[in-house]
């Protein structure tokens, strides 16, 4: 049993007749892992299984060696900001976070200190004494995040954590995730904001219809998709000449001048040969300003593997 992985072993979960997830096998290493998939694909089900809010119909789940059937152990290392918007009635933000810490066994003074620190981390200090019922959607999102991080868990599970956050807080929150991951912790999150996921995720898990479609680092997942040729943006000042040279020296399928005027868009199935050709062209004196992969991102993977229905 690995103590630094999150393991799903043949996990299936049905809600009556409705499929949640089916035969999921996963090994999630520390770092930021994004669950990506259409609505109803099973992202939240996977997160709820990790946290023990639901139990698998078959298979088993272990989070850093701990079964979700032992919440008294699991919740000491796991913080989960769910998508459920409700909060206990009549409670202030500070009391909400503090109550969770008291259940963790922190002495009252320490619980209060940690609660204040967690609330400050999500930039909600000004509203800490207000009742959660009076919070906006974004503030409720942040207070749930504060509760999830208050006990400094090794596994942070976040269901759509960036929803409703303004750009500044969003950037701060992403920085928080990165900080967590850099300390060897797990950050598991689901998001529909694919561009953002692309920027901060160490790896992605693509889900559709309760099945894992792909998992791993974005680049390696992209490499496995052979039916779609790779797309590159070749930044250069002589796109027509470069296109002619490429057709001579590499097996490219298509080369089009970028409509934005920034260079050449190229389609190829031979990435290595293409890279060699670019190197040769550059060495021959033709100016190449840059080479950017266009479809090595979650958006493209999503499009290729799941389809357009994001």
């Amino acid at each position, binding site marked *: 049993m690995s103590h630094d992985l999150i393991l799903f072993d043949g996990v299936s979960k049905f809600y009556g007749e409705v499929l949640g997830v089916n035969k999921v096998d996963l090994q999630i290493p520390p770092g930021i892992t994004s669950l990506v998939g259409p609505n109803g694909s099973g992202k939240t089900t996977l997160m709820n299984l990790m946290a023990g*809010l639901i139990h698998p119909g078959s298979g088993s789940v272990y989070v850093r060696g701990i079964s979700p059937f032992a919440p008294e152990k699991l*919740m000491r290392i796991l913080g989960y900001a769910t998508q*459920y918007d409700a909060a206990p009635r009549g409670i202030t933000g500070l009391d909400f976070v503090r109550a*969770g810490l008291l259940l*963790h*066994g922190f002495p009252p003074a320490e619980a209060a200190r940690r609660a204040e620190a967690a609330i400050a981390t999500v930039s909600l200090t000004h509203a800490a004494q207000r009742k959660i019922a009076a919070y906006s959607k974004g503030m409720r999102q942040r207070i749930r995040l504060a509760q999830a991080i208050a006990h400094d868990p090794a596994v942070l599970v976040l269901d759509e954590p960036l929803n409703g956050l303004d750009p500044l807080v969003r950037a701060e929150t992403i920085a928080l995730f990165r900080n967590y991951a850099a300390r060897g912790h797990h950050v598991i999150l689901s998001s529909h904001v694919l561009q953002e996921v692309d920027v901060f995720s160490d790896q992605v898990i693509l889900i559709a219809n309760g099945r894992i479609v792909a998992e791993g680092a974005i680049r390696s997942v992209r490499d496995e998709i052979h039916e779609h040729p790779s797309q590159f943006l070749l930044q250069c000042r002589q796109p027509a000449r470069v296109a002619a040279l490429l057709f001579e020296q590499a097996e490219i399928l298509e080369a089009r001048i970028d409509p934005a005027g920034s260079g050449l868009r190229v389609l190829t199935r031979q990435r290595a040969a293409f890279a060699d050709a670019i190197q040769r062209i550059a060495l021959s004196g033709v100016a190449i300003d840059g080479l950017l992969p266009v479809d090595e991102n979650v958006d493209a993977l999503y499009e290729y593997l799941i389809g357009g229905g994001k």
Partner: protein
Amino acid sequence: MNQIWIIARLEIRRAFFSRRALWVYLLALFPAALFLGRGVSVNYDRREYAAKPVTPATLLDRLPTGTTDKDALAAAGPPIRDRQWRRGKVEHRSLHYFDGYNRVWLQFENGALQSTRRVPLHSFAQDSRIYAGVFQYFYLRLAVFFGCLGIFLNLFRGEMIDKSLHYWFLAPVRREILVLGKYCAGLIAAAVIFGGGALLSFGALLSYQTTADIETYLRTEALAHGFWYVLAAVLGCAGYGSVFLAAGLVLRNPIIPALVMLLWESINGFLPELLQKLSVLHYLQSLCPVPAPLDPSAPPLARMILSPAAPASAWTALPGLLVVTALVLYLATRTARRLEINYGAE
């Protein structure tokens, strides 16, 4: 234990002041209000009759059946009230006297004394029996029963409806501990509300008794009676609370467990002896210090529902009830271990 106490402390305000359960206070305070009202009525009668003429009981007792109304008036003097009416061919007359303790009605038909009816202006013994009836037939069977339904069912089911139960499940707490913590919160609230209600109503019963009655009662049984009434109410909360907490874990509709439990408790007196022991009311009735009066002229169905099961001794009832409670709580904790958050189904 520490976690149980922390959970209970976090939950207790909700248990006391749940918006869904404010009617619980009305149920708990109803007997106290009833006996306070009775006290007002008794005191009013006392003041009224203090100004009325007193006819010695010995004088009224000497009037045999058949005495004419004129002879009775001559012997007993003018009555407090003299009512005459005719029904068919019979001339009725009622002479109302007060002998200093009882209200006495001499009933005449066609001028001849037929009967003498005595009603004490106030009787502590009678009030004590009425209290026993109200306590067992209303308080234990209905008020504590439905009060616990409101408090304990809310502990889990209410959180599922509010979609906030997952916060508890995300705490590093064993589900068994969570169940016990919530149960303790509900029990503390219910015990304070219904134990307090029992104490208040018992106090209300004593509040209008004569000084002599109170002194005698305090010297003899008052403390023991008060203790057993409060204990019965608190144990009722413990027993019913465990059942409704367990029901809240598995059932969505509170009407179903309430009806099933009410039916079970109602027919308990007719069940085999072994099954009677699986009733909360069976033990509670055994703990009550004064037997509840059951009018023999009551309809058969009412008698069937109200008649108590075979009584157990207080010292058997106490552990018996605690064993039933512990058994139900054990089943509840087993259920909680498998409980899932599925608000979509609520």
